[in-house]
């Protein structure tokens, strides 16, 4: 029962979000009365908006077993994370919401609330600035002070959030009213009433909004499914940019004048959260909204309408939407907004990939080669597709899956040269072996044992496995010294898939070994 309750409250929360976006065209980001203060204002505001509530949320989430999400129709199990995440705030919030629900929506109240919030945010911003300013000289300080500061900020932020949510919550009844006026059929769900309303809201509002302004409509869809995770706002709005994996490359071409875009910064924990889209019904998490929408079809016919399935796209219409760019939370990073040559990141996905690639450990190791490590799992998967297939080899040990890439690399770097794979040996060794042995046998009889000089022994062996020792010969001319023959027999012949394969040809011993074995085989041939 507790679950259910929290769920309800959560949905309520969601409704608040949905509503605010739908009605006010992103009022939270674009306060119409303060356009000039944008640069200063938006930043902390946004931070406050969606960074803070998620802090407790996401830190806990990764510990939850995934199985919990995999029960699509079990509504009871939904949002197992919510109790822990929003619990503290949630209880307070609930009260406020309850109060606000009774009231009708009053724009003036809203305005005063917002200006109050603004003041508070300014204060908080100053405080944080102070801390940031002091941080560098006080690196050696005990952790205690830092934690104190953090607690202080957290407390302030919490109150701001509560305020904001309550403000937004004031909008709730009006939405409800409009809905009841339209009189849609409420789906028979086991959900709490409000949940049902919300689900319904999305579709009906959407349907109503689309003909007029697809912007509002899509926003609603976009926002609705995952009210829990505010990050999703941003992700969804840039869904079409998900394809651009390499945020840095994409980004560099762009040259937006500072101030022409809004800078958002996610916190580390948020960035590292695995999923950003959650099903409101079963709680299953998704990385992509499109996948969530596909998933939602399983929850009822109302999600199967073309409008619900449609890709939310930006409206090119009347109101210009301010471009959003992202800042990396890592101080000192070029992608951090405080950096002198700040280069913003384009999408939330870019933020995530950038943060993981640049500031996180490379946790994923390729199981095949055991050398390559990645911090973004997709990179590992991409690598695994080609791992072992990188047959184009440079003398520096770098492998390439494509020949033209190798040649590009060689063109670029002085002194690098293509390396010859070991398995090329077979072709050429054949005929020369035969020739050599035949002639030598003709001349000298059982010459392999009659050989005295190193030169001839070598010659024979090199004939036999001429190609094999080739690379080694390239790198160290000394390999031709017959003195190398002895000690390296224990070296196994390196296979090309060897983890160290790229460098194995640099070990002269390994090559000499094969040469030696080749020589032996010939000698037996001659004996027979």
């Amino acid at each position: 029962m507790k679950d259910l309750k929290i769920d309800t409250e959560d949905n309520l929360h969601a409704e608040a979000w949905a509503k605010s976006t739908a009605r006010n065209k992103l009022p939270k980001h674009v306060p119409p009365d303060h356009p000039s203060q944008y640069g200063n204002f938006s930043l902390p505001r946004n931070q406050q908006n969606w960074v803070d509530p998620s802090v407790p949320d996401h830190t806990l989430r990764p510990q939850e077993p995934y199985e919990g999400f995999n029960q699509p129709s079990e509504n009871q199990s939904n949002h197992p994370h919510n109790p822990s995440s929003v619990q503290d705030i949630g209880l307070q919030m609930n009260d406020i919401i309850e109060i606000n629900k009774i009231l009708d929506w009053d724009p003036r109240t809203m305005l005063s609330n917002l200006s109050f919030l603004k003041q508070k945010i300014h204060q908080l911003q100053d405080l944080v600035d102070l801390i940031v300013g002091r941080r560098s000289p006080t690196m050696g300080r005990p952790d205690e002070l830092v934690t104190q500061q953090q607690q202080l900020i957290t407390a302030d932020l919490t109150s701001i959030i509560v305020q904001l949510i309550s403000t937004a919550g004031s909008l709730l009844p009006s939405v409800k009213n409009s809905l009841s006026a339209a009189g849609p059929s409420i789906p028979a769900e086991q959900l709490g009433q409000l949940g049902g309303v919300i689900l319904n809201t999305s579709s009906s509002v959407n349907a109503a909004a689309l003909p007029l302004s697809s912007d509002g409509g899509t926003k609603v869809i976009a926002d609705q499914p995952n009210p829990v995770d505010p990050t999703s706002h941003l992700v969804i709005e840039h869904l079409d940019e998900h394809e651009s994996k390499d945020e840095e490359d994409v980004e560099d071409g762009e040259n937006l004048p500072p101030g022409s875009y809004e800078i958002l910064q996610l916190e580390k924990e948020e960035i590292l959260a695995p999923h950003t889209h959650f099903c409101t019904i079963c709680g299953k998490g998704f990385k992509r909204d499109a996948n969530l929408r596909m998933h939602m079809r399983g929850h009822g016919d109302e999600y199967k309408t073309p409008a619900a399935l449609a890709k939310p796209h930006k409206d090119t219409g009347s109101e210009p939407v301010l471009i959003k760019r992202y800042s990396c939370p890592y101080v000192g990073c070029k992608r951090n907004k405080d950096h002198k040559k700040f280069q913003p990141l384009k999408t939330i996905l870019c933020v995530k990939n950038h943060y993981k690639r640049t500031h996180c450990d490379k946790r994923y190791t390729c199981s095949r080669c055991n050398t390559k490590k990645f911090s973004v799992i997709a990179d590992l998967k991409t690598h695994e597709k080609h791992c072992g297939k990188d047959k184009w080899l440079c003398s520096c040990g770098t492998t390439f899956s494509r020949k033209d890439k190798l040649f590009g690399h060689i063109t670029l770097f002085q002194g690098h040269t293509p390396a010859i794979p070991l398995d090329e040996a077979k072709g050429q060794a054949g005929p020369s072996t035969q020739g050599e042995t035949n002639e030598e046998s003709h001349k000298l009889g059982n010459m392999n044992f009659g050989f005295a000089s190193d030169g001839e022994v070598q010659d024979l062996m090199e004939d036999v496995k001429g190609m094999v020792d080739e690379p080694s010969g390239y790198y160290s001319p000394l390999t031709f010294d017959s003195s190398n023959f002895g000690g390296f027999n224990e070296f196994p012949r390196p296979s090309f898939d060897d983890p160290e394969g790229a460098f194995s040809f640099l070990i002269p011993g390994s090559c000499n070994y094969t040469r030696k074995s080749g020589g032996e085989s010939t000698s037996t041939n001659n004996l027979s």
Partner: protein
Amino acid sequence: MKKQKLSSSSSSSSSFHSDRENSNNPFDALSDEIVFLILDHLLPRSLDAKSFSLVCKSFYSIESLHRRHLRPLRTRHLPSVLSRYPNLSRLDLSLCPRVSDSTLDLLSSFPSVSPSLRSIDLSRSRFFTSSGLSSLALRCSNLVDVDVSNATDMRDAGAAALAQAKNLERLRMTRCKMVTDIGIGCVAVGCRKLKELVLKWCLGVGDLGVGLVAVKCKELRTLDVSYLPISNKCVPSIVKLPYLEDLFLEGCYGIDDDGLAVLKDGCNSLKTLDISSCQSISHVGIPSIGSGYASLKHLNLSYGIPVRVFKVTPTLADGLKKLSMLQTLKLDGCMVTISGLKALGDCCASLTEISLSKCAGVTDEGLSFLVTKHGQLKKFDLTCCRKITEVSIAHITRSCTALTSLRMESCTLVPKEAFMLIGQRCAYLEELDLTENEIDDEGLEYISRCTRIRVLKLGICLDITDKGLSCIGASCPELIELDLYRSAGVTDTGISSIARGCPNLEMINVAYCNGITDTSLAALSKCSSLNTLECRGCPLVTSVGISAVAVSCRQLTKLDIKKCGNIDDSGMIPLARHSQNLRQINLSYTSVTDVGLLSLASVSCLQSMTILHLKGLTASGLAAALLACGGLTKVKLQTLFRSKLPHLLLNHLEARGCTFHWRNKVFQVEVDAKCWKLQIEDDNTVE
């Protein structure tokens, strides 16, 4: 001068033996350097240097110090040879049937050779692998010139081994078919000083390899990428080569008009451009050449344009006009039109060499116009321009009096009177190809006025006889090469007068001139420079004639006595004894038996033998002969011997570097020249 010196030195050689400082020796007055200078003038004839070195110990050591170039026949004696010649810089191993890694290792580890060796030719050698090349490249650090053409087994590792020769300036890799972009990439990175690179027929090399070569080897002067599967993609990098002078793109199907357009934007230094057999380049692209290469001297467009129509459009004419430096233009195999030839006459700068070989559409009208505009013409190739008549010849001879080379094989409509004009007007002719023409004795009489003539081809000229040939012999002392293939009217008298009048004769072909007897050969034995004698199908020639040639013509390297049924073992023995330079012999259909064949084994140079339909030959005799001839690289045999010869023997011979060509031809009865020509014509009409 040489003889003088030799005689004087031999006279004083007795006092020479012990001490060079002996004052009795007049040669003490000469420093080694002066003798070196004298030797410099000797060298083209290798035998002279040899005789010089045999005079005395002192000369021997001088010659050893002086010699820079060496072309050994076997690798077996290489150690002693190398220690004899410490200053060797160029080593040509192309005559050695087998050059294994041990040879190359030996070479490169030889203390005197490794620092001085600058050039090595492995173009016909086999059996060496990358390790041999690697030690060569690493130890002979001054190596500048390497030829590994025809190393069809060589792979990327071999190329990578070569790439270690950092100072390489010239690398020829024709037909190294197994080498890929990777190997060439190694060469490009390793040999940054390359000035000449030949990759013709290296079918494994594509855009990437050639592109990398062009990026890395900025010193390149000559680049041959003929028949490579390259496309326009590598052209931009080639264009950026600052010093490129000669570019060969023969048979590069992937390069089209667009590539050519890119090419013209750079390459200001380009002097030679060969885009023959580039099927993708059309007449649309060719004009762009003109706008780009101001310094172009040689242009080869042969067999290029897909439909083989050389349409001369105004743009093309404009383009060619801009090539003010152009000297050579080759349009072989193109379909040219009258207007095309006229435009060529109008728009090209004065050319010195034009080749219209096998161009359909060459007519009197067009040609006449062309030659009047190019009076400076020195070389003119009209092979198989079958439509031209005496009108053309009249114009050519009138306009191009400086002509040194005229090739007009198979210009069958040219009447015999026309050749008089050639003789009258082209006094500077050095090369004349009249194969399959209507020339007669009177014509030859006029031709004999071209006293500078060196190469004369009169094959299948059925109307010429001894009379005409005697005129040539009487007045053309410079003649080096004479081709009388199937000119059956020629007999001993003609050949004798040639032999008398042309002491420098090096090559003569009297094949199927069935009137030839031993008298001719005896006369030819006076030509001491003779190196090639072809007397196929001369049934009257016997061992006596061959003996006469063998004894006197020490330079003989190629001998073809196929179908000379009267030649037997007694001809082979003097040959084996005296013709120590003989490299190639064809003995098919002769009466030579095991004995004769076996005696040839003493000719250490012998590399190629064709032995078909020898009645007296047995399997064991053949086996013994093959085994005894250590230097064989190519033997043509009848298929039936394949089963008769022991398998092990064949394997052994192949391992020594010999390849076998098995033939299963039936015995053919010979017909006379006129019959033969009629047969040919019949065959042609049937086709």
